[in-house]
């Protein structure tokens, strides 16, 4: 599709390959049915995963892309 909207669809495998990790994380970590597993209930709890993500964000921050690059100047 051309025009003002950037469209990434599954029917375009090359573009879909690049689908941002964050888009996937939004869905696999914060959505999907929560069913009690034998083993990983405590791990699968949203909070814990979000804590993990917070840790990730801060670990990514120093070298990562984003506004911090400007802040450091």
């Amino acid at each position, binding site marked *: *599709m051309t*025009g*003002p*909207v*950037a*469209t*990434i*669809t*599954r029917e375009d495998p090359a573009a879909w390959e690049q*689908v*941002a*990790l*964050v*888009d*996937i*994380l*939004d*869905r*696999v*970590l*914060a*959505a*999907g*049915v*929560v*069913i*009690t*597993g*034998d*083993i*990983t209930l*405590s*791990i*699968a709890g*949203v909070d814990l*995963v979000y804590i*993990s*993500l917070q*840790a*990730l*964000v801060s*670990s*990514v*921050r120093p070298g*990562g*892309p*984003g*506004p*911090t690059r400007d802040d450091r100047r």
Partner: protein
Amino acid sequence: MADRTVGNGVWVYAVCSDLDEQNLRGPQGVDGEAPRVVRAADLSAVVGSVDLARFGEEGLRRDLNDLHRLEAIARAHHDVVDAAARHRPVVPTRLATVYEDDRGVRAMLQWHRDRLVAALRRVEGRQEWGVKAYGVRDDQRSSRPADPGDQAREGAGTAYLRRRQAALSSRETLRRSTIEGAEALYALLSALAVAARRHRPQDPHLSGDPRWMVLNAAYLLDNGRVEAFGTAVTRSATAHPELAVELTGPWPPYSFAVLDDAREES
């Protein structure tokens, strides 16, 4: 009690009404395994056998905190869910749902049968699409050169303050109209969808996209309305030049896979 760090566990990707294992050929699972199907109560769970040294509680705790491992696991999980979703309506399970053995998976299918069936019915013949909107910054406005006449009359200090104030208020106006634009977009598109849901705006540090995300929404659409939805997204993006809009999909219905009574907010 069984040692939960030795041997194999069973990772669950999704549940569907009935799926031929042939349809899962292709993607590798989170542990590089071939995904398979476990059946009970007229339902099929899409699962994989995983090594508990890595996919037990301890291993997961470690790996979910490692961005590269998390990425590999999330993408593999998604690929298997997506493969199943191309053939059958699916209810994806949240990342890291692990059982000790197939018996545990069958018990889960039996125990939750009615609610899983209801969840499957809600997503049948439907697709999830994502719409993200970013605020388009208007940097020119805040750096507009001053009128030299002003400076002469008021003195440089006053003129500076005046300019600064004007810049701030125009930025505030832009910020507000951007938020209002995103709200209008969300509402307009919601009217075309069976259901709508908002995810948190993505952290620029994770997404690598420094733009200000104003909207991170997911829509559940009837298959027949996907094209009209795409047209509406394009039309509203044109009507809202203050927003940069991105459309992604179709996704398996992650954002709308909910078991009744187990409703929970993220």
